[in-house]
């Protein structure tokens, strides 16, 4: 019998702590698939954030390091400088990367650190029960914006890709989403491109992934996918924002 679909070896066989319909598990699986396909388990080092994905190391069978909330870019820098030939990636949520860790990501980008950043944007703080994130949409109801995010008071969603793309240190930046099988395939391609960027020593790469958090969006899985396609992508347009292979 021919196997046409199986669990990646790098994905540890265990029960998940993510909520039903959560995007984090999909992203971790895609990472595991790439590690398997490329045979890079032995040289990959991952950074887990503080956020719902803190237990990423429960799922990925590779060397992994925790970092304090928002600090993965600095910790990853310290690791990559010691092991420049390893593949180092940092996995971060929107609170982690775009609020408390803004300084660290901007300066890692500005130094052109040869590291791949996987930025999971679910527009809320999942782990702490769904408060406003820097990426929360105007009008979006969260635990700390119960009447909806009022931009006059709470500002606007931060577009990290566009913000970092203006820095000379960045090489590859793309925004993708998990809203459909097609978009998940595109997400995998983007992750591969991020790792390629690093393997070819081209410097800083970041893939922003629009990811569902049905629990704190107070939606079911289907509504969440629709919300990504119809609402999130209006603020966070999908596509390549910067690509070193396109430079003259």
């Amino acid at each position: 019998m021919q196997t046409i679909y199986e669990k990646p070896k790098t994905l540890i066989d265990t029960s998940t702590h993510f909520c039903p319909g959560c995007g984090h598990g999909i992203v971790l699986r895609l990472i595991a698939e790439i590690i398997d396909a490329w045979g890079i388990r032995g040289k990959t080092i991952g950074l887990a954030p503080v956020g719902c994905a803190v237990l990423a190391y429960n799922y990925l069978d590779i060397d992994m390091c925790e970092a304090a909330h928002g600090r993965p870019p600095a910790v990853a820098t310290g690791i990559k400088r010691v092991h420049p030939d390893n593949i180092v990636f940092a996995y971060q949520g929107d609170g982690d990367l775009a609020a408390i860790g803004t300084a660290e990501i901007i300066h890692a980008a500005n130094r052109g650190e040869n590291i791949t950043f996987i930025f999971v944007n679910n527009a809320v703080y999942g782990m702490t029960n769904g408060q406003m994130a820097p990426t929360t949409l105007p009008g979006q109801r969260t635990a700390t914006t119960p009447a909806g995010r009022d931009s006059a008071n709470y500002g606007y969603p931060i577009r990290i890709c566009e913000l970092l793309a203006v820095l000379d240190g960045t090489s590859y930046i793309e925004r993708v989403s998990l809203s459909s099988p097609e978009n998940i395939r595109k997400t995998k391609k983007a992750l591969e491109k991020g790792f390629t960027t690093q393997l070819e020593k081209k410097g800083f790469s970041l893939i922003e992934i629009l990811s569902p958090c049905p629990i704190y969006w107070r939606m079911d899985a289907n509504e969440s996918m629709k919300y990504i396609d119809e609402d999130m992508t209006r603020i966070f347009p999908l596509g390549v924002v910067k690509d070193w292979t396109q430079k003259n």
Partner: protein
Amino acid sequence: MKLLLTGNEAAAEAAIQAGCRYYYGYPITPQNELINYMSVRMPEVGGTFIQAESEIAAINMVYGSAAAGARTMTSSSSPGISLKQEGMSYLAGSELPCVIVNIQRGGPGLGDISASQADYFQAVKGGGHGDYHTIVLAPSSAQEMANLVYDAFDLADKYRNPVLILGDAQIGQLMEPVEFNKKPKKNLPVKNWALTGAEGRERRIIKSFYPVKGQLEEFNAHLQRKYKLIEEHEVRYEAINIHEADIVLVAYGTSARICKEVVKKSLRFNFKVGMIRPITLWPFPKEITRKLSESVQCILTVEMSAGQMVEDVRLAVEGRCPVHFYGRTGGGVPTSSEIIRKIVEILPDNSEVNTLLQLVEAK
């Protein structure tokens, strides 16, 4: 060969000699000679120097390089060390070896840039959150700075624990002759926990998160056992003229240099002044302090603070003899005359006050 170096430069060179190849820092007076020196020396020896975007980033870069198995260091002064506390708690919680240098300046807040010892509590009581300790070493000269920084890397590796060097603006900026003659230590534990990529072995995880009930308490028990070992084996201090002393001074770093002068001058007095200079502030030299409290009339702790180390002295003495305090704050440095006045004031038999003061003031 002796080189004329500031304490800051001595710290930097000693780190290089100890095999540190990853330095991350952020400018702040009075430790600038250290970061500047590293920016030149690290590239010379093929190491990494990064001027980080903040002390927070610098300590987290240290966390990364330590996790990757390398000898790594950062340095700063008081306000910057406050910013590093989160990282230090994580380093202790993940049991990562590294060296952190604090060239203390006056506080609180922005304070000033002159010498101070007001970060003692922060240094020895934890500073960051959680039940943890860093090993704290207190040099009192440029030479000792070099020696202790060298030893700090060995201690860090031996115990998988961050080591803090607690200096001050005078120790950091005073130029003195320094010799680098330490030899690499053998038999340090292999770093079989470091992240290198899991090629041909089981994967490794560096973390301080223990969400399963009971695991964190178990891990804390392990930390406490380790701290107990450190307390049993790593206490260091210098004792001067403590035999048959009537009064013993306790001081570290710059204050200790001044107290040494007092001990010298006191040789002409009709009572004996001895001195204990803690070299490890944590673990604190409790045993010798306790012993002395049984033989001396009283103890005088001298600090450039409002009275911080004196609390540890009192804890060791447990009321067996009076423990007095003399301190200057906000960049003030005690003079030997001030200290002698204080001694005369607190000694039970001070009938010869005037003669003593004349002696001192005549120099």
